[in-house]
């Protein structure tokens, strides 16, 4: 089978990999790079579970060909923590009950991270809008929204220090 060789920048590390050219970024992350933190719920761009950041913007990795990602910076949930310390959004999600089954969590964390990069103190409505493409069946969204608000607070406190 024909494969392509590509260097991908994932979580600020250059990763050299070979894969069939039809593979989506989702598939390459999970199957070729072993980064199974990125989830899938439909592989049709409907649920948001596979969201990752490409050059800082949330993208559905099931709709992006890995081939298109050469030279771009990809961030997955595995890249969020700083060493052993959780990112403020991650710790807020864990503390506020934002992750029940945890399956939609990686996609929402990254979507929220991108939102906070643009708007450090978003309103509740802006948060709801930002994650409206990420389906969660467990929480009813309220604890997720509160966790993002708390994550924003923790992040700005951290930056103020």
């Amino acid at each position, binding site marked *: 089978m024909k494969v392509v060789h590509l260097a991908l920048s994932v979580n600020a590390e250059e990763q050299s990999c070979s894969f069939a050219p039809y593979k989506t970024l989702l598939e390459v992350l999970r199957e070729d790079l072993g980064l199974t933190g990125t*989830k899938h719920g439909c592989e049709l761009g409907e649920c948001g579970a596979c969201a990752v950041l490409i050059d800082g913007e949330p993208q559905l990795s099931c709709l992006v060909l890995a081939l298109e990602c050469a030279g771009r910076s990809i961030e997955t949930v595995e890249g969020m923590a700083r060493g052993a310390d959780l990112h403020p959004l*991650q*710790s807020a999600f864990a503390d506020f*009950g934002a*992750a*029940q*089954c945890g399956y939609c969590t990686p996609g929402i964390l990254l979507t929220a991270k991108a939102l906070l990069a643009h708007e450090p103190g978003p309103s509740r409505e802006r948060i709801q809008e930002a994650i409206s493409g990420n389906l969660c*069946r467990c929480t*009813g*969204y309220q604890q997720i929204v509160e966790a993002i608000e708390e994550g924003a607070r923790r992040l700005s406190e951290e930056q103020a220090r």
Partner: protein
Amino acid sequence: MRVVGKPRRRVDGRAKVTGQTRFADDLVLPRMLHMKLLRSPHPHALIESTDVSRAKAHPGVHLVLTGEDFPTSFGILPITQDEYPLAPEQVRYIGDPVAAIVARDEQIACEALELIEVRYRPLETIASPEEALAKPEPRIHAYGERGNIHRLQAFQFGDAESAIAQSDYVFEDLFFYEGNTHLPIEQHASLAALDADGKLTLWSSTQVPHYVHRALARVLRLPASQIRVIATPNGGGFGGKCDVCNHELVAAKAALMLGRPVKICLTREEVFYMHRGRHPVLMKFRTGVTKDGRLTGMHLQTLVDGGAYGSYGVASTFYTGALQTVTYELPRYQFEAARVFTNKPPCGPKRGHGTPQPRFGQEIQLDKIAERLAKDPAELRLAMLAKPNSLTANWLRIGSIGLEQCIRTVVERSGWAGKHRKLPPGRGVGLACGSYLCGAGLPIYWNKMPQSGVQLLADRSGQVTVFCGATEIGQGSDDVLATIVAEVLGIDPTEIRCITGDTGITPVDLGSYSSRVTVMMGNAAIQAAEKLKVMLAEAAAEELEVAPDRLQFAGGRVSFDSRGLTFAEAVVLAEAKFGTLGTVGSYSPPRSPGRYKGAGVGPSPAYSYTACVVEAEVDAQTGWIRIPKIWIAHDIGRTINPVLARGQVEGSVYMGLSEALMEEQVFRRLPPKLSGALVHKFPSLLEYKSITSLDMPEVDTVLIEDPDPNCPFGAKEAGQGPLLPVAPAIANAIYDAVGVRIDELPITPDKVLRALQLKAAGKPARIGPDHFPAVPYPAPLIVPPPWEGGDGKEVKRDDAAAVV
């Protein structure tokens, strides 16, 4: 309480936010192959022949399996073993699996699926319960009551009809609750492999590893000791992973035959076909009421659309009537139910299992009763509440009831008194209540063994490991387990290691369904932890020279006044004194007083209660419905971890709201020239609408604590009950807003608009079913209620007159 009741990060919280939780499809093994299932494109057909020769020859294909490879049937209930891993002769719904390909990768497997040639002879499709009743042929199954009627049930707990006839008012209402599906974001996945010692291991996203274990032993004809089922953390369950699934059995068989690991992950479309979701139910409620607002009797009839297989359906059907008695005093009750087979994906248990449908009808009818009697809906309910520590007409034993406090709480917090019938046109409030089981009283298969077992190990490092078959589906069962053990032993939950959901190494727990885990696993955990505590106390007491019962276990210390040891020091002393430390606990629910045939569905160690107020805004021009706020109070008995408990309640509110306003698993007929078959209207996440963060209203959640003596620290369930009142409260709020009754789910803008048009035309402003078909219910089983001299057994018909 030092740990119980305190808001805490769940013990598995870190794993979930770092992406480290290993779901089934995240697992990879060396030499792993991939499997795909070929599914029937016909809703009903006979398989005339299957040619797999081209698929077998396709490069990269390792194995092709068909129905011939699986001679043994299976099914979750012992009385309905009506499924085959791959259909051998007949397919009964679009998506029924007929063959499997195991190949080097998914791509090759998909290519090979195209090369299998199956010749079908299509049969007439049975599309609806009405058709199932009218057409005994073609028969979807060769078993059942007759024709396409799967199951009929009829009970009379006192002469309800004569009580209704003698009432001041009689209310007769029809309701319909459309089917809908669980939609867990994680698609079902399984990985099967042979261990180094030749035993089979199946990792699977299942809520019921114990039942999967039993089914594998049956279907593969292997001793159960040779099989290990590991339930991976579920990416959402909601009942959708409670059944034994075809793909689990087929992957296991393939791994056994090939000696290589075999993985399958269903596509989203396949998850819609797998289904086992909410049964569509048509209901007829006849209820008698006195003029001061007491119920005299209720006669409930249900017609349940089962889809293509049995699944949990017999139990689901019982549940469409079993819990009507546990919220309000109901002196006499008649219940008749029928489940029919249709050529649609099988229905099964979804959050609330069979009870949200009749709860929807009952709570709307109560709103109508309150209106007619000119009573406030909250006051009407408060005056008829079931009594704590009582028996119901159908012989369920109720323990604690926090419903009064729930109602008063939501009424006060929502400002009900100032809103109901007082808001401007287009805005309204509605109230409804509900109740749910804290675990089914009986296991799915008859046995006298415990329903949950817990094993504890402690060693000289101070480490405590707890083993239990309970399954983490996101609800927080591991956290409940760790918290309860930590509370008893006076340590922090994060110091405990939980090993759960693994039939190879954990004691049996029946699984995460029927809201049973907190109560059953929790009671077993307390028992195991108390035994360990006794040993630790005895050893520590010797060292500290105090009586063992004076020792305090708290904050990681075992102490009396200023004298004390660390927990780990106490473990060292106990290990020295008693040898290796291990204890077990187990739990069996109390025996239910009902002795009649059918009394097994409905009993529970305890019942949770919920009250809900919904505010609604309805646009009279478009029928558009907006829900600005929902108030909910849930009688949880005792809160183990308020962060998680609130999440369960709000998640239930969300799901109830989503079902009420948009979710529907529906089908359409193809035109006659395209066979007239029945196809799924939209097996996709895009078109199957569910509520997003933008649609979700603010939810005001209050946990009411009325501890139940049967429950661990008094804690009841929280994961299903709070769903029940949401849909009827919405329907009642819409009536308050615009004066129209929508007696069926989902309540969509087009239905509201049609009802408003009827209202404007001076016609009855109601949308809902207008007739209930003739169902051949059998003569009811006559069981006198406790207050009519009954003893919990059925009586012969001749004796019934004498008793009444």
